[in-house]
């Protein structure tokens, strides 16, 4: 008989034994993500110039000693904007993922644990949310609450919540029939305690894998909104907004100020996907054992 219990190990041991023993692609992506976070945190000290200040003597410049990756049509230093722009690219998706994960876990756990008609109703509501396009929801939120980081993050959080909720719901419904859960109930523990403190931690890694993948997609969606001019507003540096601002420079034959943030978005999104999926695969393999 195969054990389908999720196996837990201390995080450090898991990193050493499983994580770092993965293929080169995974390791490259992990390094990339660590670099991304470090840059985002220390951007103001790392950036050689203030990306909000235009150097009007050097607009749409190519790469050079003064401007490592050139400038856009406002004379903003592309390299500095890239570094500082990493902050909103980290904070925005982080807000989306934290909110959608917390609410998704609460909704999914409640629904999966209760079962019956409560579960059926919540399931239908989630279906409706699934069917609603996330970008449309974001545009609605911007129309209501105005441009900036807040409204799109809120909308994305609402749009991403059903993915986590559905995952947690399914896992909970499956897990609550395991005899260890029955044993906790027979011992006299309160059902709420068993669900939150005993069952939920056994779902942790799977949910974390889903949230990691969500982070990448949220980053992409938020960049798209900024590109459309609905998200973070210039001169605050943001990768999506940078691509938007670079239009004139691209037409003038200086595509670097558009290419650089675009490549950054793609790399980080791919890295989050690879890491998240690898994490999920690893759990699936361990489950199958």
């Amino acid at each position, binding site marked *: 008989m195969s*054990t389908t219990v999720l*196996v837990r190990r201390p995080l450090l041991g898991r990193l050493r034994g499983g994580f770092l023993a993965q293929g080169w692609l995974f390791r490259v992506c992990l390094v990339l993500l660590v670099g991304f976070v470090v840059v985002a945190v220390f951007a103001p000290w790392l950036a050689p110039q203030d990306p909000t200040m235009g150097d009007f003597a050097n607009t749409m410049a190519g790469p050079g000693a003064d401007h490592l990756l050139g400038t856009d049509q406002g004379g903003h230093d592309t390299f500095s904007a890239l570094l500082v722009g990493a902050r909103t690219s980290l904070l925005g998706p982080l807000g989306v993922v934290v909110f959608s994960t917390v609410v998704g876990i609460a909704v999914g756990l409640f629904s999966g644990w209760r079962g019956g008609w409560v579960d059926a109703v919540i399931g239908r509501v989630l279906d409706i949310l699934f069917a609603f396009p996330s970008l449309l929801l974001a545009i609605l939120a911007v129309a209501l609450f105005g441009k900036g980081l807040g409204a799109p993050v809120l909308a994305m959080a609402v749009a991403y919540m059903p993915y986590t909720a559905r995952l947690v719901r399914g896992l909970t419904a499956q897990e609550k029939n395991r*005899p*260890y859960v029955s044993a906790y109930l*027979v*011992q006299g523990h*309160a059902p709420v305690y068993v669900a939150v403190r005993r069952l939920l931690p056994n779902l942790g890694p799977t949910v974390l894998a889903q949230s990691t993948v969500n982070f990448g997609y949220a980053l992409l969606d938020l960049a798209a909104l900024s590109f459309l001019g609905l998200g973070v507003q210039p001169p605050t540096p943001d990768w999506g907004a940078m691509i938007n601002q670079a239009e004139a420079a691209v037409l003038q034959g200086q595509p670097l100020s558009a290419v650089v943030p675009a490549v950054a978005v793609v790399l980080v999104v791919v890295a989050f996907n690879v890491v998240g999926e690898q994490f999920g695969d690893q759990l699936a393999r361990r489950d199958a054992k």
Partner: protein
Amino acid sequence: MTALLEVTDLRKTYGGTTAVDGVSFTLPPGGALGLVGESGSGKTTTARMLVGLERPDSGSITVLGQPLGAQVRGRAARLARAKAIQIVFQDPYLSLDARLTIGATLDGVLRLHGQGDRVARAARIRELLGQVGLGDREAAALPRHLSGGQRQRAAIARALAVEPAVLVLDEAVSALDVSVQAQVLNVLTDIRREAGIGLVFVSHDLAVVRYVCDEALVLLRGRPVEHRPMEELLDNPDHDYTRLLLDSVPHPGWDPESIARRRRAA
């Protein structure tokens, strides 16, 4: 003498199917009853109703004169119900929380049941594990580092930690090797003799039931067909179905094909 456990006319249906239909029995203090039948005979459903995991459609369960409600509300009621009846499940791989060491699992049970003092708990854990033949090494181990037999003994220790009046064993040795089965069965006869805990032993295996129990209740499609002392039942089964179950235990001159034929006819 009041009965330790008194079960009267339990019934349970799922949709149109009757899983348990009119099961009644009593268990004296320190008694052991075998609940015998093949898959789908309603024995596991009966066990789950005993511990409150399923709600019976009708019938009553009384432990030491106290009726057990089908649904308990509030902490005191939950703990009282837990003290009445505990259960050991079939699959020792899934019945222990994979994240907790055996010691931590037992500690949680003792804390829940009002043992506030850490040192006293540690002593009690050692005592409980000693009762089932486990030691400090097993207390510090996660379930997946233990063998099937060790896990099942840990699960028994976890049930005993509640100090129940009755212990239900739902196919508790069926997943174990024969030699490990023997160890666990010895543990069970010991706790029965020493602690006076009543056992309800759910199994399809009459060879195992005979070893532990004084009497057996044979279930066929949710209905009791025979309820007699073990020796009598084995020597002189009344019902065809009981004879069939007895003949299903491998023995010299065993003919599985004729058993299969009779089973289809039953």
